[in-house]
């Protein structure tokens, strides 16, 4: 087994592909936590997004025929974002309006994401584990051999964009204020509840996008449990990245690299695949245990606000 240039190039592109869903989700988690709401439901929301994208595209193909519809994958992406936002809205209502324990409410959504897809899949396809393959996947942009899904570019573009939104706009200032000191923000006339709803729903939209990328960008179908802990890893990356877009970029690249390495090493005789698969998870535990500087979460995160 020689590690030649082809190996490293494949590793590089694989890293970009693996980073994309993590980056999208971690940026979403950042908006939610900056507003003061923990959202570990992102794991489940990725699944809901993936399911929506795959089923919507497949159903439209079922009625219109398979023939190439360039707009169709984008419809899948939009519907995944919509559903992601709606599921996040459930979490938001329960944890903001009804002041539920945010982790329990999110866990409920994650549990739902384990069961509900099977019901939908059984309804449409009579099989509980995966959807039918779709013909219209997201296109690939870029030079031959190095082409990437548009969502990859989008994810990396979102880093400066969300930095600008969070730190250079009044909206971002309000969002951060609500997460740091809701009482003070309220005194200044900021609607705490509305900012938190926006933060949580935004995180759901981004996680839904990540799901769409998995289902119709990375693969061409929904597979049960396909998020494989990405939502949780993203949250770890967000903590590691200190709730800052740039930090999140680097930490998700680290996790993406770990996953890519695991994939590239599979089938080689360097390390057994079953163990290598656990690599990103081990990295997460190590990172959380403090092989990182001190990081301080938004002061009011996880605490329901009462007027």
């Amino acid at each position, binding site marked *: 087994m020689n590690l030649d240039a082809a190996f490293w190039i494949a590793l590089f592109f694989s890293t970009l592909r693996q980073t994309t869903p993590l980056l999208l989700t971690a940026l979403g988690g950042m908006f939610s936590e900056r507003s003061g709401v923990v959202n570990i439901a992102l794991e489940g929301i990725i699944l809901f997004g993936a399911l929506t994208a795959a089923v919507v595209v497949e159903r439209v193909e079922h009625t219109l025929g398979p023939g190439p519809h360039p707009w169709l994958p984008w419809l899948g992406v939009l519907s995944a974002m919509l559903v992601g936002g709606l599921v996040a809205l459930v979490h938001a209502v329960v944890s903001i309006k009804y002041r539920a324990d945010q982790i329990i*409410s999110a866990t409920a959504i994650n*549990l739902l994401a384990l069961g509900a897809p099977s019901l939908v899949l059984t309804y449409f396809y009579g099989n509980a584990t995966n959807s039918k393959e779709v013909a219209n996947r997201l296109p690939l942009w870029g030079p031959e051999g190095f082409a990437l899904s548009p969502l990859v570019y989008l994810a990396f573009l979102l880093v400066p964009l969300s930095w600008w939104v969070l730190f250079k706009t009044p909206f971002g200032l309000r969002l951060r204020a609500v997460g740091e000191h809701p009482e003070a923000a309220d005194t200044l006339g900021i609607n705490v509840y509305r900012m938190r709803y926006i933060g949580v729903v935004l995180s759901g939209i981004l996680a839904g996008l990540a799901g769409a990328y998995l289902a119709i960008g990375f693969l061409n179908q929904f597979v049960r449990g396909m998020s494989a*802990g990405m939502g949780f890893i993203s949250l770890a990356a967000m903590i590691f990245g200190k709730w800052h877009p740039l930090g999140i970029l680097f930490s998700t690249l680290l996790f993406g690299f770990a996953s890519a390495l695991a994939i590239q090493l599979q089938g080689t005789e*360097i390390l057994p695949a079953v*163990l290598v698969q656990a690599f990103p998870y081990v990295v997460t535990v190590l990172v959380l245990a403090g092989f990182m500087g001190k990081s301080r979460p938004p002061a009011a995160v996880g605490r329901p606000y009462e007027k």
Partner: protein
Amino acid sequence: MGVWKDRKRLGILVALGGGVLLLLWYLAPWAVPHRLFGGEGVLLSPFGHHLPQGTLPPGYRDGWLSWVFYPSLVWLALTLVLAWTPKPARKLYLMGILGLGLFLLTYLLFQASVAQVNAGAERPILRRYTLGLGSYATLAYSLYLLLLARLFSPGGLAFLVRRRGVVVPLFSLLLASLLGGVIVAVMKANPGEAKTLREAAMLKLDLITYTYQLLYSPLVNPSGFLQSLLLATPLILTGLAVALGFRGGLFNIGAPGQLILGGIAAMLVGVYLPGPRWLVLPLAILAAALAGGLWGALPGWLKARFGAHEVINTIMLNYIAASLFLFLISSNEYKFFGYTLYLPFKYPGYEARSYEIRPEARIPHWTELVAPGGELSFALPLALLLGLLGYFLTRKSLGHRVLLGLLAGMVGYLVGGFLPGPAVNFGPDLTSVRLNGAFLLALLALLFFHFYVFRTVGGYELRAMGLAPKAAEYGGVLSGRKMVLTMFLAGALAGLAATHYVLGGGIDEYRLKQSLPYSVGFDGIAVALMGQNTPLGVGLAAWLFGILLTGGLQVNLQLGISRELVAVLQALIVLFIAAGGFLPRYFTDPLRAAEVELREESRKRGEREETP
């Protein structure tokens, strides 16, 4: 002034309930005396409508319906009127009890009508017969009346608020079931053709009713009953594993991983340690608890030492445990940087599974416990009896009482083992259920939880840490150490759940297999929340989910709805409990609950002073 307002509200609530009842009486079937395997049936309703799907035997007489229907109408009218008379609560109590009687009458008359047809026949002609939603609506309305009557008599609200630990989970279960009904209605087309809107509604409502009847059918069917206990066994243990964490203010989502480690340890001891049964079996069980405990203690330590949040760490450790588990049993040859590592654990063949557990290390099947050698044994009942006597009849410190109880239990077990019992034969339906001694282990774990959390200093500290970590620390709790210990115990409980599968052969074989359903660790979250982190609650919640999971199999077989319906119900229950059942705040907030109780208390006192 307040009284009149209350009475008006009561009248409106009764009227609303009555309206729904009337609608359901009209739209839903009252009884389904005959049903095909796919759920289609003959729907009986007193509004003169039979939907013929399948045929009724010619001898069936449905005259009993009018015997029930007209009294029911009178009863409904009475409730509506009585709600507006002065002092309505007591009258509504009476009406509620009368309604229960009416439901009982319906049930008995229906059973009689079926029995009358089945009487002469060699094999019963009507086999799948059930009451319909119309009859159940009577029952529900009666309970609703009783609830309203209690609520609107003095101190009623305080009565409910004090029992919020029961009210919130049950109300959430009700809400989840309603939503589940909608899901069923959307997912499954009507089994027959409907000519009118009413017929369509009737078919839909019957479909939903039948789904829930199947889900709860293990309650009335012996083998289903045992099966529900079988499925409850691991749920009790993982539920306790999560509940213990909650009590200590920690969220243990790591039960699946802890269960896997427990399974691996149980397999290692059970397969490879030779020795007599009295030594190997306890060691294998202990190994499972220890391994699960250590795997749980790891995130506890990471939190105590580095402040790493236990939620993400326990989840990550689940994935790592799953990898380790596959590594051990999916192949015996691995390449590391060109070197080859040989492992001895995988049994030859395609499937990823370990070697069989040695017979000495197996947890006995329930028939061996209840009736070893085909003869009913008094060992367990006597052990239970003497154990309880030993505990309750001594007047010493708790430690002494528990010890005496245990000793007396052991004596009872030995003595009972020697008593001769009558021969019994359970039949293949019951003996094929793989319920095993792990169920007793789960019950013991419930007892352990109760004594540790509510009767010891350690448990007191644990609860203090959960309720107010800073106050606990100030009060002298070493919170870091306590955190690790709590997670260790929680992990040990989850690890024990694996003994049910590996040592007890809970699924099909006495092995560690790839099909080990470690996701019951996640179900433990639902169990703990539904059971409100009390041992009794966890036991009952686990049993409830055991029933639903068993019934889910029938739903899948007969109606073709995925078994995951139960998983969705579980998730909805968790969501609704998290939201406090969408009930007013005094049901979720202890301070406001106390306020309500005090207010009602003083109002009651005021009324008592006014009356004489």
